[in-house]
């Protein structure tokens, strides 16, 4: 075996960037074996070992900065939630990425994404003024002093044509339920959750700082998010920066509306539906029951649990910046998800996250299963049932 150079400065730098718990690791390897990468074949699966990557970080040994390794983690949280030592593995990943990205070494695939965030306040190269384009055909109120909730629509659903339908259906449901809400619009910035996860701390601080200033200036007290990623970031990242809002995911609000009878699903479809737990809704935020209760509120729907569900849910591979990754067919987690749903006998695979919808739709198409399985956002299934 070749000798390895231990760089103490690198080790200290990584800790300084936020990997405060990296030295708690006792090298048991549970993380590596709960990692979704073990479920797929291919080069990344062979090269990326989260335990080993952290070991390199612990010692400041080079090798972790390889793009295939450093940017492989989708921050699904399966390892972190089960780590026997409580190591904050995602913070370590983030810090190790920040130690490289902070020095200007951004993977080529991420450069336009981060650049667009700097220029347009969203990662999708969409002009700022198009942020409210999803509202066309709807009468969405502006957030103001008289509105209770600020509806923060994920950039993905502001710019991606497929994803706009999610924003539309969520807004429609909130309106039907009589919720007092409004949108700020073009001044909003991306929450920056993924930017922070890929290690661009500077960009995250810029986006978050601007959002906090804007939201507070507009008098925001309560936020409904469409995406679990924005939810998590507002509740955790932004809270660290002093933001003090009541933040909920739309599934939580809708659950209340249905319980109170303000929305009453009346479908006759009788479809078999599986629910895919988004990592940032389930494992990261502990919301498992609300989306299931919404599904069950639809008469005639048969809910089929996937093999890996709730705390054991398998990531769609869209978190941690992976939504911008290029993964060969046959190595995508979403494909396993789609196959599981088909095997379960589901006709619809519903989820509650724009990234998941994106990743699962790609997987469904690449497997050519679109005739037997429909990928839907939960809000769309609900709108259909009204």
């Amino acid at each position, binding site marked *: 075996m070749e000798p390895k150079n231990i760089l103490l400065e690198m080790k200290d730098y990584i800790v300084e960037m936020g990997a405060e718990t990296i030295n708690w690791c006792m090298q048991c390897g549970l993380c590596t*074996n709960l990692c979704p990468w073990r479920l797929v074949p291919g080069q990344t699966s062979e090269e990326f070992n989260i335990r080993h990557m952290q070991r390199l970080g612990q010692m400041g040994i080079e090798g972790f900065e390889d793009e295939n390794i450093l940017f492989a983690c989708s921050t699904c949280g399966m390892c972190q939630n089960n780590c026997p030592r409580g190591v904050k593995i995602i913070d370590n990943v983030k810090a190790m990425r920040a130690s490289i990205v902070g020095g200007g070494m951004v993977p080529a695939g991420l450069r336009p994404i981060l650049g667009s965030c700097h220029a347009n306040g969203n990662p999708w190269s969409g002009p700022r003024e198009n942020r409210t384009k999803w509202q066309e055909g709807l009468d969405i109120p502006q957030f103001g002093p008289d509105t209770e909730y600020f509806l923060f629509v994920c950039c993905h659903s502001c710019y991606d044509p497929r994803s706009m339908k999610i924003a539309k259906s969520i807004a429609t449901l909130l309106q039907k339920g009589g919720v007092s809400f409004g949108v700020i619009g073009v001044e909003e910035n991306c929450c920056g959750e993924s930017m922070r996860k890929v290690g661009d701390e500077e960009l995250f601080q810029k986006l978050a700082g601007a959002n906090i200033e804007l939201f507070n200036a507009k008098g925001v007290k309560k936020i409904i998010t469409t995406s679990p990623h924005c939810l998590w970031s507002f509740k955790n990242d932004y809270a660290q920066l002093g933001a003090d809002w009541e933040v909920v995911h739309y599934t939580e609000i809708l659950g209340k509306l249905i319980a109170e009878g303000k929305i009453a699903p009346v479908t006759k479809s009788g479809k078999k539906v599986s629910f895919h737990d988004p990592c940032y809704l389930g494992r990261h935020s502990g919301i498992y029951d609300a989306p299931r209760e919404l599904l069950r509120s639809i008469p005639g729907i048969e809910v089929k649990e996937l093999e890996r569900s709730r*705390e054991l849910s398998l990531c769609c591979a869209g978190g941690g910046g992976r939504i911008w990754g290029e993964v060969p067919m046959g190595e995508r987690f979403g494909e396993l998800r789609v196959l599981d749903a088909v095997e379960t006998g589901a006709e619809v695979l519903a989820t509650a996250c724009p990234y998941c919808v994106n990743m699962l739709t790609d997987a469904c198409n690449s497997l050519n299963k679109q005739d037997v399985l429909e990928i839907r956002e939960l809000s769309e299934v609900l709108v259909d049932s009204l």
Partner: protein
Amino acid sequence: MADAQDSARTILVAGGGIAGLSAAVEAAEAGFQVILVEREPYLGGRVARMNKYFPKLCPPQCGLEINFRRIRNNPLIQVMTMAEVEKIEGESGDFTVGIRVNPRYVNEKCTGCGKCSEAAQTSIPNFFDYGMSTVKAAYLPHEFAYPMRYVIAPQVIGTPEAQAIEAACEYGAVETDMAQKSVEVKAGAVIWAAGWTPYDISAIAYYGAGKYRNVVSNVVMERLASVNGPFKGIISRPSDGKAVKKIAFVQCAGSRDENHLAYCSSVCCLASLKQATYLLDQQADAEVSIFYIDIRALGRQEAFFEKVRQDERVRLVKGKPGEITEDPATGMVTVQVEDQQTGKTLREQFDLVVLAAGMAPATSQQKIPASGVVYDDFGFVVSKGQIPGIIGVGCDRRPADVSSTVQDATAAVLKAIQACRR
């Protein structure tokens, strides 16, 4: 009862496992009255359900039998089975203890003839075998049970079956109208020996226990290997009864894990090494894999660890397994683990996976019914700063093996005597 009782000369022992038994006989042999209260219908607790135990690896029956004889021969010990301590009031030297006695529906006239069992039709899960076998609704808890007396399951009470059971007894021992009762006793000290429960391995979701039949806990493994167990001692797969050849032990299943039990349960490494020998002794072509974080074979048992390690059929792999999956067609269970010494990921099938479940004190689930008892973060009864006269012992005080529990019980008796004398 209270008339014959001098509280300053009486020690109440809650729990009739090895800790409580040891405490009871030691206290009685020092001249104190003892009331031994056991929740189950028999004495011996978890030890009675083991195949073999350290240090001599003998079956538990002989050790228990010696204790039972000491109890039988000592009129100072009063045994109450199917009984639970409900409340403890008063102070050191003068406690009043409320005890609930559940109906056994069989009185002391029982000779153990078994006619009642023959008359019973209903089968119920056998508690003694952790539900892997069944017993009739009139049953002897196990063949060496003390007291050697049948029990009628409450499920059949009030049915014609119960009448048939009662009619079958030639000694007037079956009393289907027996009712639950509460009694109060006086005691100068209380020794709490409620024992332990194996950590609920189904809470470790990624190991699939409870979902996969061939993923079992270490306590179940003791029954699988016992001659009076569900497979007559031939270690077999719960799914299909097929003899086990290839076995995996997963250490620290719940222990040393902040999400489960943050402490080391201290006995599981040696328990798995011991259980490995069960299979090695009965299958010449056995293959044993032990997956560990590190092996903690404490004290004198290092030699035992060495002996097992040197067996060519044993493989020790440093690494904490991740997911366990089952092939529903064959019942084979696949363990995936990263060997920390080679960095290679292993993915292998086994007939049976034994999870070395950690020890949780019974007091983590059911507290001592007295106000002000002090526990640590994990529910163990602490000694320092404790209410005088209430003494936690054995696995209610810390995870422990049988021999140190016995020593602990003896020490607890001295504390109890001091409390009575105060």
